[in-house]
């Protein structure tokens, strides 16, 4: 693996290998006081974030550090971005300075792919840490790791993704990865928050959360950005919450084994009731924990396993 840009088109065998590596790393590190492996000693990993996301950036940073890589964080506020330097020039500068891997978060869809083309010459790997409304592949991998842990396998499992699919890179990445791993995906959202052309994705669509819940093995709640509530995508937070929020009443409709996920940060009360988020069905804190192991596994497959996998 040279880059991780998207789960759309990602080989299921490779995805499974990354998930298996994440499992191994998790068990290796379990109960260790010093969580440090020498695997990426001497390698330089740069996180290049054009959008604030402490959660994702810190997860990558810990993943890199636990593998002994030198991790340098570059954020838009402190870099030359504000001086009008182009993404291309910034990327080439980082590569020239010796970056083995650039982890990029950018508001433009396709930014990670463009970066990978500009960095083809220096041979720097690129990880997409979220590009516009396109993809966020490591989030989907950590969600899959969490679901595998809870459900055993994803084969023929039915997973509901609920909320703002239109603007969600997490949803896009999950749709492709879950489908590739054999799961069925149902999107539950108001029509205004589904992309036009959604029928081309490997999903079914529903506007009735109550009807879907009894038949799902997991429900993945999406974040609703505050600006969407005032953008006319739905009449009010209250109405959204009534129709698409995961309340305690709704949770009772789920099968006993069903898992509740949320990529965070959560709007408690509106998207998900606090009691549901904190219930045993919720795997929200495991998602965060697995995020580090999955990102370690991704860095391993990109930087350490030369020729070991495709």
């Amino acid at each position, binding site marked *: 693996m040279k880059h991780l840009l998207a789960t*759309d088109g990602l080989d299921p065998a490779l995805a499974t290998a990354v998930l298996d590596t994440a499992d191994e790393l998790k068990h290796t590190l379990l109960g260790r006081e010093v969580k440090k492996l020498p695997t990426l000693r001497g390698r330089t990993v740069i996180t290049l974030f054009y959008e604030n996301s402490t959660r994702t950036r810190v997860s990558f940073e810990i993943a890199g550090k636990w593998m002994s890589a030198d991790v340098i964080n570059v954020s838009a506020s402190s870099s030359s971005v504000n001086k009008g330097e*182009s*993404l*291309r020039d910034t990327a080439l500068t980082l590569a020239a300075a010796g970056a083995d891997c650039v982890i990029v978060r*950018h*508001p*433009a*869809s*396709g*930014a990670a*792919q*463009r970066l990978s083309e500009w960095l083809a010459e220096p041979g720097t790997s690129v990880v997409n840490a979220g*590009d*516009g*409304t*396109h*993809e966020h592949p490591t989030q989907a991998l950590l969600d899959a790791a969490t679901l595998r842990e809870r459900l055993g396998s994803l084969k023929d499992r039915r997973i509901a993704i609920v909320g703002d699919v239109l603007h969600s*890179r997490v949803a*896009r990445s999950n749709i492709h990865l879950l489908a590739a791993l054999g799961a069925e995906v149902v999107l539950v959202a108001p029509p205004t928050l589904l*992309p*036009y*052309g*959604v*029928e*081309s*994705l490997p999903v079914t669509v529903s506007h009735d959360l109550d009807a879907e819940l009894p038949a799902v093995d997991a429900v993945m709640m999406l974040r609703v950005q505050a600006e969407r509530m005032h953008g006319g995508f739905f009449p009010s937070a209250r109405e959204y919450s009534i129709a698409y929020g995961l309340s305690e009443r709704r949770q009772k409709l789920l099968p006993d084994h069903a898992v509740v996920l949320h990529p965070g940060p959560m709007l408690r009360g509106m998207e998900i009731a606090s009691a549901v988020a904190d219930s045993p069905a919720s795997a929200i804190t495991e998602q965060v924990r697995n995020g580090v192991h999955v990102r370690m596994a991704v860095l391993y497959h990109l930087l350490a396993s030369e020729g070991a996998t495709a």
Partner: protein
Amino acid sequence: MSTVIKGARPYGEGDPVDVLIEDGVITAIGAVQVPEGAEVIEAAGQVLLPGFVDLHTHLREPGREDTETIDSGSAAAALGGYTAVFAMANTDPVADNAVIVDHVWRRGQEVGLVDVHPVGAVTVGLKGEKLAELGTMAASQARVKVFSDDGLCVADPLLMRRALEYSTALDVVIAQHAEEPRLTVGAQAHEGERAARLGYTGWPAAAEESIVARDCLLALHANARLHVCHVSTSGTADVLRWAKDRGTKVSAEVTPHHLLLTDERLATYDPVNKVNPPLRTESDAERLRTALAEGVIDCVATDHAPHAVQDKDTEWSAARPGMLGLQTALSIVAETMVRTGLLDWRGVARVMSERPAEIGNLADQGRPIAAGEPANLTLVDPDAEWTVRGAELASIAANTPYEGMRLPGVVTATLLRGRVTARDGKIC
């Protein structure tokens, strides 16, 4: 000064003939005695067409001379077989007054490779708030015939109504960039399956179609002439057919890139493919080709839009929309319309020369190839092919989506009022 074109077939029809041109006028067609000292153009196997007219060119002067000038754009036009181009008003400063349009017109005359007809802005500063002085521009030295806020849509229906009404006293045409701005906030690509998958903010077909429908109704009401720029969707073709059947004075253009390219290109995220309106689906492109063949869409216009490297080699959303078009237009039309049998060369003359000249109200362009007519002519080798190299094109910018593509149809000579402006790929 006389010139003889030997052995070409006008419109690709009939037997090869010789064409004698004297003092800028075609004086004889058939078996011609070559006058002493005449320039002879050997054109066996070639198709002779009236010089092409582009209703939609961005020459970037004044303001962005780092990407194109009237000089470089005229060269690109001549090499592409054009004898007249209409230069869009969205320059910096905007061509919304007689001083700027006269400057553009005069520079075109000085360069002398192609007639440059400035398009005047419909509204002051392209702001969509207040009508520009259409009458003054129409009466200026540049004799402005086409007005457009292209790049932007005259979105206010009342202002568009006034522009159409006012234009009827001037015998000019209002050319609309049809894009409902409220439906295209943040839009980056055709709204459809591919954009959904790739995470592009969508530019819905209805944003174009709703404006075209509205404007057709307004033009019919005002009995005014409307020209629809760069039609991109099959739904717009439906609206145009309906409006024309009702007697609306509406004409429309399609770009070569909308005839050939589709949103399949989005997966590259390479902004060389970013254009406004965006590349649509294969079924849209197919419909645009048949609509052009049937005359529902009147003509081809390039929307030639040069951009600097730093404005294109970026992430998609930061890139400016637009692509070069003047030197590749004939080849794309040959590829999509002639090779497919949708148009013969007489049809090409209609959509690339005659209809645009009529719409732009040019008396001496798009004329028949006949004795007594002005010698604005283009020679095309229909069997030759060439490979597109952006860096080798005459434009200062190099943003062509056809880089490396092998295309049919080579323009071998262009004559403006009898003077050879381009020959065998070189400016004369």
